[in-house]
């Protein structure tokens, strides 16, 4: 790879549904353009229903964009979904585990689906069990695990193939303090290994602490994107909640005049 590639790049990405009840089109995403680099943690910040999950699902090839394009590691999500999926790890708050498989079996199963060689897979699973301190429950069925243990299993599953891009959809929702701490440490560790993490959250403090750059998203539009410092400068507000409110005000004023 001669030139440094962007981990994620989207251009005028849009997604429109037809609402079943009202029969009116719903614009979940409107012309969203963003980019993330390797070695960067990018946070998508916004209230519930802003379009964060839709963006992340388009990037993980589970939904198709209505218009615009999105590239992961330089590959179009629509053209080469399989190759894109090889390069990402995906985890969301609603992701479940197979209740009747053990964490070790879960990792082995998904490793096999990634086409890893048995020996390499074995070594990688052991490595992950070490890294996430999973040995004591590695052979217990997932249905009997605590929520923190489940969380660690899910994370290990997502990074099993050491993806260059990790997509996390509200990863800390529903976790207790300890588990949240684990998750934050984990995300920071990914930056150190020059990977890209794209995650969505509505928890402002998390974004402030973790993110290299932040994208603020509201009603399917990207209102602003940049480092915390840039955002502070842009809005004149100190903390993220103020920044967010200022951006929303500005966007509403803008849409009122046009």
């Amino acid at each position, binding site marked *: 790879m001669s030139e440094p590639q962007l981990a994620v790049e989207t251009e005028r990405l849009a997604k429109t*549904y*037809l609402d079943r009840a009202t029969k009116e*089109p719903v614009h979940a995403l409107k012309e969203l353009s963003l980019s993330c680099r390797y070695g960067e943690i990018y946070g998508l910040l916004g209230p519930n229903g802003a379009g964060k999950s839709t963006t992340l699902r388009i990037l993980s090839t*589970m939904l198709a964009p209505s218009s615009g394009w999105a590239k992961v590691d330089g590959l179009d999500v629509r053209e080469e979904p399989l*190759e894109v999926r090889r390069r990402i790890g995906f985890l969301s708050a609603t992701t479940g585990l*197979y209740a009747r*498989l053990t964490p070790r*079996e879960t990792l082995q199963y998904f490793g096999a689906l990634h*086409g890893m060689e048995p020996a390499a897979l074995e070594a990688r699973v052991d490595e992950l069990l070490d890294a996430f301190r999973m040995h004591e429950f590695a052979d217990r069925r997932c249905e009997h695990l605590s929520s923190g243990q489940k969380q660690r299993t899910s994370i290990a599953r997502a990074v099993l193939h050491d993806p260059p891009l990790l997509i996390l959809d509200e990863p800390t929702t529903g976790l207790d303090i300890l588990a949240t701490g684990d998750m934050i440490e984990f995300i920071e560790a990914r930056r150190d290994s020059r990977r890209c993490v794209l995650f969505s959250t509505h928890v402002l403090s998390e974004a402030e602490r973790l993110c290299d750059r932040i994208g603020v998203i509201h009603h399917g539009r990207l209102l602003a994107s940049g480092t915390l410092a840039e955002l502070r400068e842009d809005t004149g507000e100190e903390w993220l909640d103020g920044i967010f409110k200022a951006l929303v005000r500005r966007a509403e004023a803008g849409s009122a005049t046009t």
Partner: protein
Amino acid sequence: MSRRPGSGDTLRLALVVAKGEFRRLLRDKKAILLAVVLPILAYPAFLLASQKLNSLGQRQIEEREVLVARDLGGLPAPLAEAVRARLDARDEGVRFDEREIAGAREVLETKAPDKERLRDWAEDARGEAYAGLLVALAAKDGAPPALHLVFDGAGEDGIALSTQVLGPLRQLADELESEAYAARLGADPAVSFAFQSFDAAPPKDRQGLALGRFLPLIAVLVLLSGGAFAAIDTFAGEREQGTLETLLSQPVPTIALAWGKYLVVLATAIAAWIGNVVSLVLSASLGLFDLPGLGVEGPGTARILLAGLVFLPTVVLISASLCFLAARARSFREAQAYLLPATLVGAALASPAAAADVQLDLLLALVPLAGPSLALRDAFAGNLQWLPAALAFLSSSVYAALALRRIAVTLDAERLLASPSPKGMDAGADTAQRSIRTALVAVAAVYLAGGWLQSLDLVWGLVATLWGLVLGAALWLARANLRGRGTADRALPANAARGVGPITSLKDALQVCTPGGVSRHVALALSAVFAAPALAQAGRHLVELQSRFLPLPGGADLEPIARALESLSLPALVALFAISPGITEELLFRGAVLRGLFARARAGILPPLVFQAAVFAVMHASIHRLAITFSLGLLLGAITYRSGALWTAIALHAAYNACAVLTDRVPTLDLAHPLWWLGTLPLALLLLRPRPALRARP
């Protein structure tokens, strides 16, 4: 790294998925116990219990005594003695009480007795309750003396009585008649036609047949229930568990996922089947109940293997259909809800094999489940016909392959994950969906409510069906399609090449506008009237052709209908059977439904035409009219599409029906003359002209 996965990869990944799914499935011990092991134990228990109950009932029947009052006063003494001897020789449940029954003879001679009368007769005998009367009437006017058995057929006693008394009496009468012939002619001519039957079938074949007659039904039921457990767990259960998203974000083609899961369902279904057969055979050999066809020598390995082979594609088909149903479902419960209808349809299709005299022929071989079931039976009986069996094998393999292809489509992330309808992006998809649904509901309504109305009064019921139900459905659908077209429909451009697209007005929704000018449609409609006789001739040829391999079964009683119609005048008949269906059915099928289907941008031309013709054919509710109504529907649909409006189809449909009425009523009109074929020319020429563009869209 950027290598595309080949088919070998797909298979390898499918096996990985299958392995994982198996592990998961087998770990759920409770579910396996309840869904697989319990039925294996329950079926024999159920059979045993019903057999015990049956024998209990049988014993009670045998112990029951039925008392009949007998008055043989009308018979000559020797004949009465013969009757008595014959009846009293039997020691089964019926007992006779010889007594005179006052007035019975007079009543039986003149009119039909009623129950009151029977009760009167029965009660005047010392408080004894007689279940029936046997009264002899003397010979009269050359007619022989008659024995009347009076009973109440709506009760066990009456039914038992009639079967136990009438048989011996008829046999006696026959013997006496035979004797009379012998006395007159020296020999009874009928004797030389008496025969007994001898079954030359080898015991192995006979047992194989007995086994093969009920195995297909059991196979279908068990495969469905056993496979459903796995199908629902691997497809709908995955979704409920929240792991589907994870699975779909793996770098694995969806087809590999579908195949892997499918393999698990297939294996579970087969395992359940084997388990059930073993449990049945075991409990039968332990003497728990009788299993027909389990003789000293079994059917033999060769036959079992052959039977397994011919049924294999059906096993694949059943599992694939299960996966398809389960993958469509959004939850475990929804998947479960599809199961009962599927089971009932499966059982209905597998049932022909239970009749020993139904032969596997080339037509039946094409019917899914029915053909292979018959082949399975024949394989067990040792008389498999190779050609139809191969056809059954091939056709069900094709069905199975089609079903398998559908599974991968159904495992589409877009459909499964997005809660709002993603179809909104295809203009008019909702409109098309609504049209499909309305057409099916209309068929059900015509079948149920219309059938009921017509049983009350044929003529007015038909009027109400056509002008109420059919027209109502057409208008409702047109209005709903217009209102519900949605902003998405309006926003997206129509498929200009096809010349159909979003619905613009109520007239458009019913296809009753006049693109290309009124005169064009008047000309078309007029020419359609002249084309109708030729079309009617073609229809007759089609029906004749069909009757060669699918004749109307005898015994269909059409007389009441014919009688009801005789009273109608010719104009009334034409109005009822030609003009009414011409207008109302066209408005529904070629109008609202076809237009709604065309509103979908991706639909193409042929699928909507075929669908509406198929529903139109099904509405006519008979397998014997399927081909003719389907062809007619297809033709009318094509004409409507080509002319851009409904008028021609209405005229042609009405005139076509009128031909049938006129042929029947006006014999002087020779509609079967070959020259009528020239009448099709104007219509054909007019239709050759290009289809006019639809009106400008707003």
